[in-house]
């Protein structure tokens, strides 16, 4: 059930739907530190929504609130038209939310395929015993899930490392494997925490292409945090700008680029 509010049409002609997730007056504190101060914004169906800001602005905290890992002291997270109760990570995953991490969090000793298969874990229904015997329903389930994973592997062009242990891969590929694992769960909402951090220009171009085609092919709603302004402005439909835990801008890339507060936060402002 979506918010009845009207969607909009992007510059490149995609139709964006109603609100999927609505952050209402979120405040998050760690002891005396206010990481997020009274922020409200929404994420709409099918859009690429970026959260940007200088170091320590509270971006990752915000993503953790969206993913349900942190529970804000004040404010409410509305998901699909109703306020969300505090929940466990696997419950969040079952709601169709998947994420990648700023510092890669893969199983280093396992192969790429096995890592991607873990993305299907929440969808598996057969019990521990039947999986161990691996007959009947469990086998069918494994085959179905493998098929979905293989499509993701094909989509992200990582066939050549399917059986390679993750520990042996270079950084850029690990990032792609992490995206593959997130996609394997067929998410409705995909959260990306600095997907391009530490990449060279070519890897960034590849990753941008994959993010756009995920959004295009599967209609996945994407919320991402990113440092690289160029990438953000090219990829996103709408951008939230944070600084010291506050929201200082919200709008299309062009609107944000011309916002004086944003320019001050990024370039500094003279105090004379």
């Amino acid at each position, binding site marked *: 059930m979506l918010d009845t509010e009207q969607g909009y049409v992007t510059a490149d*002609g995609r139709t964006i739907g109603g609100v999927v997730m609505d952050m209402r007056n979120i405040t998050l504190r760690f002891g005396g530190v206010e990481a997020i101060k009274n922020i409200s914004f929404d994420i709409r169906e099918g859009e690429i929504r970026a959260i940007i800001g200088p170091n320590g602005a509270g971006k990752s905290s915000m993503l953790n609130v969206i993913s349900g890992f942190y529970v804000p002291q004040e404010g409410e997270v509305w998901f699909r038209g109703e306020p969300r109760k505090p929940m466990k990570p696997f419950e969040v995953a079952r709601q169709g939310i998947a994420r990648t991490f700023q510092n890669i969090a893969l199983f280093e000793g396992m192969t790429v*395929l096995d890592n991607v298969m873990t993305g299907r874990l929440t969808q598996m229904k057969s019990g521990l015993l039947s999986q161990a015997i691996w007959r009947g329903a469990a086998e069918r389930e494994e085959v179905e899930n*493998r*098929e979905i994973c*293989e*499509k993701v*592997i*094909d*989509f992200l*062009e990582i*066939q*050549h490392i*399917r*059986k390679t242990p993750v520990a042996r891969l270079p950084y850029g590929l690990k990032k792609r494997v992490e995206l593959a694992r997130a996609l394997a769960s067929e998410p409705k909402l995909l959260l990306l925490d600095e997907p391009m951090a530490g990449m060279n220009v070519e890897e960034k171009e590849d990753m941008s292409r994959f993010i756009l*085609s995920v959004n*295009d*092919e599967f209609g996945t709603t994407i919320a991402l945090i990113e440092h690289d302004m160029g990438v953000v402005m090219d990829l996103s439909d709408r951008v939230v700008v944070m600084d010291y835990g506050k929201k200082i801008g919200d709008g299309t890339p062009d609107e944000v680029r011309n916002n004086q507060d944003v320019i001050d936060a990024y370039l500094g402002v003279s105090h004379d």
Partner: protein
Amino acid sequence: MTQPSSGADGLQSVPALLRRNARVMSNSAAYREKEFGIWQSWTWAEALDETQSLALGLLDLGVNRGDFVAIIGRNRPNLYMSMVAAEMVGAIPVPLYQDAGAEEMAYVLAHCGARFVIVGDQEQVDKVLEVQNDLPEFEHMIYLDPRGMRKYDHTRLHAFEAVMENGRAKQSSLMGELQKREAELTWDSTCVMLYTSGTTGKPKGVVLSNRNIIQTAQASSEFDGLKATDEVLAYLPMAWVGDFIFSIGQAYWTGFCVNCPESQDTMALDLREIGPTYYFAPPRVFETQLTNVMIRMEDASKVKKWLFDTFMAHARKVGPAILDGETVGLWDRVKYTLGEFLVFGPLKNTLGFSNIRVGYTAGEAIGPEIFDFYRSLGINLKQLYGQTEASVFITQQPDGQVRSDTVGVPSPGVEVRIGDNGEVYYRSPGTFVEYYKNPESTADTKDPEGWVATGDAGFFEEGTGHLRIIDRAKDVGKMSDGGMFAPKFVENKLKFYPNILEAVVFGAGRDKCVAFINIDLSAVGNWAERNNIAYSSYQELAGHPKVLDAIQAHVNEVNQSVAQDPMLSGCQIHRFLVLHKELDADDGELTRTRKVRRKIIGEKFDDLVTALYDGSSSVYTETEVTYEDGRKGKIKATLELRDATVVPSAQKIAAE
């Protein structure tokens, strides 16, 4: 020359062969392709069903007799079927190199006036759309992989699957027309048109008839005893004549299975999984593979390294003899068998060569060490000599008569003679019909009696009757003192060193020879790592004094060996430099089949050639490069020029 008026059982076209295969061996595998991690297969019956459905779909799109249908993409079963489907409806398939840029494609598409284009994926669609304004004849494009295609304007674009479905749906109304067109196909109908890579000038469209392809396929299949149970891996460009002969000609004639890899990067893995029985690779592939094996052996434990070294030494001694069926002592045989168990078997398995019955290499000279390495493992690797205009085969090596320095005896049905200027001429059933829209070039190359000039200089070895190729006839020149100048002879000697990827020798009309050298990044990079030499880029490594020392040692050794040959001792290299960039087909320095374009390189790096001749010790240069996305940039570098040691020729020493 025999010119049968009709083929065996009236099989005068590739579609007719397909129908025979679907009838005679309907349930054996015709194609396999790895997709989604699993080898998907097509039986001959399924291949016929899909090819026919596509042909019907093409009819419905309005493909006429004699239309050109361009096919662009990596090796995939459906694209092979597209070529046959095009022939079924009386059109002419034209496969293009998929890694060519949009402009290169535009030339070929415009030259043949392709009305229809069948492509693999979005990348190729974009390239064709980019140049469509220069293609007045272009009408419809069919794409295989629908990814990313949803938002495109579909008035002239069609999904492969949809065209096939449409063909199936209209089978009852269109089948009559299709049967009529297929019945019209004869020996002389065009089977395929292939564009030559063009070492010089613009690509030329080589028209090959059914007679050319099917007779060549038949003769060469019989020569090597190819069977329906053979397996090949199709990974070389579809636009290359060799792939057409192997994956369509011979595959349809004998009915063996063509396996397509999952992607370019998974080649090595797929090769291992398939374990082909019949395999072709250019020398470069074997070189790279050997370099990788050697690098990995350096990292192996002491025991493994000792085993490898000991048994490989033994294999070099007796392996080729055992392969050729000569008599070898019992103890040597026992030791070789032990080696097979401990080293060769596992190594061949890793390389994917366990099942090879017949392997070929061609296109360039292969280093004797490289060639012997594979043969000593028990892999029946042979050489052949051919070209597009001959439907590949001119000469090839029979089992048991294999050497690294010859290209074998004339293939069955092929006549070969050497012209007065040393140029090799041939005449065969595979000899091409004509160059499309280019009667002058056709007349220049093929005389009225059907003899074709290869453009290569060579001679028949006395005693064995094997052909040896010296160089391109055009490239064989004279030095200013009248001595013979054969650059490739020297370049090949240089390229046999693992550190050297490519070499270009200049010297025609000059008093001495000079050379450009490209280092092999994987071999030299690995060596640098071992010797604690730090580098941050290709350019820096290529200019490192220690790398130059190593290359200089190679050049000196080559000079020694060149001096042994009385005719060519003048081709020793006096000065050389190591290039700051890798020669690349995208920059026009190599052909798409990775042959050096000496003239273009000479013009492009004119400043470097001048510096090599004027005796300066270093030179500053700026070079334009093309990136993969088509943008251009500049590389700046200061290169060190080195003198090599020149040896007096063997003759002169004897005279003193």
